[in-house]
């Protein structure tokens, strides 16, 4: 090592100093060397059998901008294509559907679950700033925006982390607000309107074609949680979150079949109608245990809302540490929810028209099972390459007891099988 002017000996000196003081280099970072970068790049692939496919490149950047100061940026670019269930059930005849404006139609063959085809792209950007806020407190501020051809969302968030007991306990409180607007292709449907009564506008109105209308919703979420280091090996977290949405909560592309009360044959459809507010609450508990080599994560979530949905979710990860910082992590997740009060697989034509009804399978009795495996491989000193593959199955009541006539011949709640694959490269500099 030469001490010619300009030669850097700082690293060698830092190493010698750490040896003398019996500390590690990580412990002794000065303000001067706060230039830590983390960059993630990856692609998520999600594909439902015969239905939706999403390809999602994700970029994440984290830059240390000072002591306890970070800037995070996340950019997502989604390409979604395929078909999604429109809510109507399969029946013994071909089914034709009309958009709310009456301008487009599509037909599903007899015996098949009606799906509407779509393709869209989404760009989402989220920025976050983390900074110390007084003693043992860290503040996080965020903004986010997401744009699709028929959808736009903007939001603000803030979170306060307060440490106690020498950082063994952390209290987290957070608040976020989002504003979403939707301008569906084919216009905004009138809730509960019969599709047979939708009339195409006269061609002369084309100038006003732009005015297909839009709707919006506002969401406010709050979270309060405690993270506690229990022992050198165990950590637990407990969160309560509450969220309130109001405004347009319908899915403008969803309809519900109207069936004949005695034959069960589909005679018409109505656009769905959901309440204009939703209060969601959940309790979340997580437990992490470090075995001598491996790590176990267990989490349980209980969710309930004022639409009548309650859900239990259990999630288990086990991380096997392999040779040289590589790892293999199996994942098992099970979730079961009860249906919303206004969920119906179909409506009977002679019964009174309810104020709210939806046949969206995501609001029905639903069980979701996910199996997955993740492999992590170290790249260089501090970077990582990972591959995750998961298989998800969503099942409901395919042949419900209240099915009428021909409805009994068809699967009213087809099982959805999805495959999820993700590759990610995490680089640290």
């Amino acid at each position, binding site marked *: *090592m*030469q*001490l010619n*002017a*300009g*030669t*850097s*000996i*700082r690293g*060698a*000196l*830092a190493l*010698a*100093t750490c*040896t*003398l*003081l*019996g*500390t590690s280099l990580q412990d*002794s*970072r*000065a*303000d*001067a*060397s706060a230039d830590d970068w983390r960059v993630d790049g990856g692609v998520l692939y999600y594909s439902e059998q015969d239905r939706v496919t999403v390809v999602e490149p994700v970029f994440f950047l984290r830059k240390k901008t000072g*002591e*306890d100061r970070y800037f995070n940026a996340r950019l997502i670019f989604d390409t979604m294509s395929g078909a999604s269930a429109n809510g109507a059930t399969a029946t013994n005849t071909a089914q034709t559907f009309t958009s709310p404006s009456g301008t487009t139609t599509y037909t599903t063959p007899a015996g098949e679950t009606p799906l509407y085809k779509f393709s869209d792209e989404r760009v989402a950007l989220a920025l976050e700033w983390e*900074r*110390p*806020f*007084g*003693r*043992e407190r860290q503040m996080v501020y965020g903004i986010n925006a997401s744009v699709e051809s028929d959808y736009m969302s903007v939001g603000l968030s803030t979170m306060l982390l307060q440490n106690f007991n*020498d*950082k063994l306990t952390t209290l987290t409180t957070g608040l976020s607000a989002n504003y979403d607007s939707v301008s569906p292709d084919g216009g905004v449907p009138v809730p509960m309107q019969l599709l047979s009564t939708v009339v195409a506008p006269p061609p002369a109105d084309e100038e006003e074609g732009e005015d297909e209308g839009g709707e919006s919703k506002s969401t406010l979420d709050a979270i309060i949680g405690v993270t506690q280091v229990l022992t050198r090996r165990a950590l637990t977290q407990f969160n309560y979150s509450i969220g309130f949405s109001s405004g347009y909560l319908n899915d403008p592309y969803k309809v519900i079949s109207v069936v004949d009360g005695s034959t069960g044959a589909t005679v018409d459809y109505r656009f769905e109608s959901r309440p204009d507010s939703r209060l969601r609450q959940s309790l979340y508990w997580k437990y992490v245990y470090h075995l001598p080599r491996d790590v176990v994560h267990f989490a349980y979530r209980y969710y309930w809302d004022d639409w009548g949905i309650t859900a239990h979710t259990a999630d288990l990860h086990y991380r096997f540490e392999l040779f040289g910082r590589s790892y293999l992590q199996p994942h098992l997740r099970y979730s079961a929810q009860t249906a919303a009060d206004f969920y119906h697989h179909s409506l009977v034509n002679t019964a009174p028209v309810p104020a709210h009804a939806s046949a969206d399978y995501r609001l029905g009795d639903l069980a979701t099972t996910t199996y997955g495996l993740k492999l992590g491989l170290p790249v260089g000193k501090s970077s990582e390459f990972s591959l995750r593959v998961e298989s998800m199955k969503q099942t409901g009541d395919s042949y419900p007891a209240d099915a009428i006539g021909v409805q009994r011949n068809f699967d009213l709640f087809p099982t959805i099988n999805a495959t999820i694959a993700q590759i990610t490269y995490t680089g640290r500099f």
Partner: protein
Amino acid sequence: MTLLRRQGYWEGEFTAMASPCAVLAEVDTAAEARRLLDIARGEAQRIEARFSRYRQDNIVHRINTSAGQPVEVDDETALLLDYADRCHALSEGRFDITSGVLRRVWRFDGSDRLPEPAAIAALLPLIGWDKVLWQRPRLTLPAGMEIDFGGIGKEYAVDRSALLLQAETRSSFLINYGGDLFASGARHNGRGWQVGLDDPSVTGQGSVGGLEIKRGGVATSGDARRFLLRSGIRYGHILDPRTGWPVPDAPRSVTVVAATCLEAGMLSTFAMLMGKQAETFLAGQHVQHHVIR
């Protein structure tokens, strides 16, 4: 030892290593401030007692009076010797813990009394870490040579005290042992500690600016009151152990900010030893620094 309530923190003072020492801590009570001060003072006094060359009851004295016989040293002394060995190599022999014997002829009292070149030359055989046999844990120092941890000791005491205090408190503190400092982290208000840069023309009496330090060490080399002046040439007190003469064109003072006080101290000392290339050397280290010429 005194303890004073300041605006938002406690400041405790004591004297050790022939320097005024202070510990500033953002704690709530006087009792807590005193507890931390006692820990820091204990460590400073322990290091002074163990490694001062002015005492006759410690390892340094045993080594310096070993008359060429091997001396087995304890782990802490071995770590310091390893460190000195590394610094000697990194500085290409400019930093040398055996150079203290030059004090026998050099007295920087502001006068024009330069030593006789022959007297300096006569001492050179007694200087040079490369003449020492260091085989951990045994050190064999040729007769007549001396070692002196003076160039490391105060910075070492600052970092050691900081480690002890960090194990005791999460509160932010600043240790200042005679101008060598360590700050442990941001204060309640999110800001760092304000540190004045000593004015080398009136050392200890005034400052020529300041810097804010949240976490890390700060050290200054140079004392402009210690010099000799002869025939218009100023001889600063930084001696090059390879020649026995003051380093030509050394800055009057160099202050460095680094991860630890030791690193800051070594980098500022090395910079002084680089003479007129001090600034170039520091620019290559990518550390915050201030040079006064």
